[in-house]
């Protein structure tokens, strides 16, 4: 092979940003080939997706609706990844947050939003945080692999929610559908404009600002960066890795929990199955977002909006062009595939050299 990899002396900054962009383009190209195979013109499909998501005010509002939980979960996953704690449990933490917020409503309380919303935010964040704390605790105490524990706890959380909406919290007037009653007005997040954009978007943007300052300007952010880069050096510097793993998962789970709260209180207005889209759940998409965003909170916001566009555009072509629902999932998977592969190029460089014998001196 004339092409070979050579270790770079320093990680390429330029490629750090080029790889995500190229990955998206490559993913679209490969998905386009798949579309061609099914007899669909990929260019018109993509144009339709794009204009629907970013060319209409209704579409863009929906993009922001999707981006809201994505930003929150993406930020949570990002900060955990930054410390090399592989939290792939945002989906479960989101469900527990939604459950916690709903529990506030289920007490029968029907009060002012000024009291109810903060109570639901706190309950949702605490439930998400505690759910995140379980794998962190198992890691710290027993060195359990967090990839497994966070993943498995997702199923537990989803079934936990299912138990309540099929059982004690089920609305008797729902004709058998597994869902709670609609939340009272005081438990609904304020919406803006004509669309469904709600106050959760402000929560998400605030969280991004907060995380930026935490990461870049605080001593604790420095600890997270050091621990993620060289855990032994973190011990040497007097940082407590155990304490930081617990803290980072409190934040990570809390943010995903807030996403769950915002979904039930801003969009669904009740607790039901599939508060996260079944084909491409927010909590899993957040993993792709965190990876594409290069551990940068603003990157998470940007990528989440693009991903939101993919959701909205995907829904559109599903209806207008009869494309299958899994189409969005395929594009997402390809993006992650290319970005993981492309990361090799940030560490190594591709050298073109012939293997032929050179002229001897």
């Amino acid at each position: 092979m004339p092409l070979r990899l050579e270790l770079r002396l320093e990680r390429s900054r330029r490629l750090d940003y080029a790889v995500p962009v190229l990955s998206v383009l490559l993913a679209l190209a490969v998905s386009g080939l798949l579309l061609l195979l099914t007899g669909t013109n990929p260019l018109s499909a993509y144009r339709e997706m794009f204009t629907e998501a970013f060319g209409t005010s209704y579409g863009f509002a929906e993009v922001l609706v999707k981006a809201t939980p994505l930003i929150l979960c993406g930020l949570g996953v990002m900060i955990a990844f930054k410390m090399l704690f592989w939290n792939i449990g945002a989906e479960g933490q989101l469900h527990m947050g939604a459950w916690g917020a709903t529990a506030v409503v289920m007490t029968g309380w029907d009060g002012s939003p000024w009291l109810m919303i903060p109570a639901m935010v706190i309950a949702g964040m605490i439930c998400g945080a505690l759910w995140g704390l379980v794998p962190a605790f198992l890691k710290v105490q027993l060195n359990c692999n967090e990839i497994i524990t966070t993943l498995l706890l997702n199923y537990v959380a989803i079934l936990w929610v299912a138990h309540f909406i099929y059982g004690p919290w089920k609305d008797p007037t729902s004709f058998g559908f597994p869902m709670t009653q609609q939340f009272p007005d005081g438990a609904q997040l304020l919406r803006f404009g004509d669309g469904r954009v709600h106050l959760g978007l402000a929560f998400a943007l605030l969280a991004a600002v907060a995380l930026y300052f935490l990461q870049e300007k605080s001593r604790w952010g420095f600890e997270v960066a050091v621990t993620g880069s060289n855990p032994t050096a973190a011990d040497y510097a007097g940082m407590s890795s155990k304490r930081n793993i617990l803290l980072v998962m409190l934040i990570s789970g809390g943010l995903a929990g807030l996403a769950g709260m915002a979904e039930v209180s801003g969009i669904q207005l009740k607790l039901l199955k599939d508060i996260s889209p079944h084909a491409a759940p927010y909590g899993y998409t957040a993993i792709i977002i965190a990876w594409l965003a290069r551990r940068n909170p603003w990157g998470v916001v940007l990528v989440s909006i693009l991903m939101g566009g993919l959701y909205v555009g995907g829904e559109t072509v599903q209806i207008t062009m009869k494309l299958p629902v899994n189409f969005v999932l395929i594009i997402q998977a390809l993006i992650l595939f290319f970005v993981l592969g492309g990361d090799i190029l940030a560490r190594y460089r591709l050298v073109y050299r012939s293997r032929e014998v050179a002229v001897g001196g």
Partner: protein
Amino acid sequence: MSAPRVAVSMRGVTKRFPGVIANDSVDLELREGEIHTLLGENGAGKSTLMNVLTGIYLPDEGTITVGGEPVRFGSPKDAIDLGIGMVHQHFKLVPSHTVTENIVLGLGHGLAPVRLSEAEEKVAELSKRYGLKVDPAAHVWELSIGEQQRVEILKILYRGARILLLDEPTAVLTPQESEEFFVTLRSMREQGHSIVFISHKLDEVMAVSDRITVLRGGKNVGTVTTAETSPQALSNLMVGREIKFKTYPRPERKGDVVLELEGVNAVDDRGLPALKDVSFTVASGEILGFAGVAGNGQDELAQVMTGLRAVTAGRMTVDGRPMAGARARDFIDAGISYVPADRHGVATVGDMSLTHNSVLRRYREGEFGRGPLLNMVAASKYADRLIAEFDIKTPGRETAVRTLSGGNLQKVILAREMTTRHRLLVVMSATHGLDVGATEFVRETLNRHRQEGAAIVLISEDLEELLSLSDRIAVLHQGEIMGIVDAAAAEIETLGLMMAGERRAEAIA
């Protein structure tokens, strides 16, 4: 007499990295059946040259011939196919696998799998032929560092290497292991192998090599026959100036006791006793040296003194305050600086900037921000100050420290640990692997800090260093102190006996 046959010839090899010329038109000739030392300061381009010869890096210019045939490597595998094998400083072994499994790893394929029993016989035979004593069925985690190195050498011999490149092989060995290792080297030479040996230790180089090539600043500044040169001449070639080794005057007066250990016990990572009933004191303005063969409790002692390892029994006080059971950050706050032996793995974060690394253990201090905030402007100023004061060679303070040479990295660590209000300085293998110039700088710095009243614990395997710097020398053997002697009156023979486990009464001056 016919001219010796040439095994490898490198002509005009140039390798550039962004902003650096690592190898600048280097010529190197390796003859068949010779031990050829590659000598040079850190950053002189030795490792780069060897990486070119093993196909890890492609040269930008120049030609390589192996056995008279011009070659161009496409990958490390090509080098192996040509009989060139390298043993790196950091071993690449799988601890949970056996010696034989490690050796055959990557060989064979689905149609022709490696038969482990046959491989084991072949390993045993190679091991016998070259005097590389190691049990082919042992697991790598059970082996000492010296034995692991033998596995690495066996690995390349197994692949049929005729040309062996050894990157600072003695750096990890005890003096006894080094002696055994030289016997192996000579036996490999007798059997016609060509060996490139990278080392800093001039006495070893003089003892074992046939010819020596000195690199400086990426250039070959001379290839000499060992019999016709002297350590002094080599050292001059390496640094381009005269270097004098000296002993430092010890201060007459000593201050108050800073650190006191009384009957301290600790266990290692496997839970086995590592320190047994260790007692000593260090006073302000004093350097207490710790000698001992590697692995006799030095690591654990350094970790205990810096709060990174728990004390299982005994008492430790700093300035009279008990410290046992405290956390690492309490030790930092108590003014204990620590220069660990492992610069990359422990003392720095390679991917982070010099600025970040310069505040690695100080980021909690008020100087670098208020409350929970970290003031990067203050940190940057501090990093600039360290770069200027310690003459750190770096493109800038934002450079990732991973790219710095060993000597400059050690300067970053020393600068950080010494530019702080320290009461006690724990320094381990301070000059290990550093070139002559950097070594002198480190020793001067330690001496200056002693003069200024710091209490210093200096743990080293380099007896010359301990004798030149210490006030007193303690010897560790299997986790116990064999005795503490006055450095001015200490004899190397006595220290050697103590390192081998002989007890001496304390002879404190």
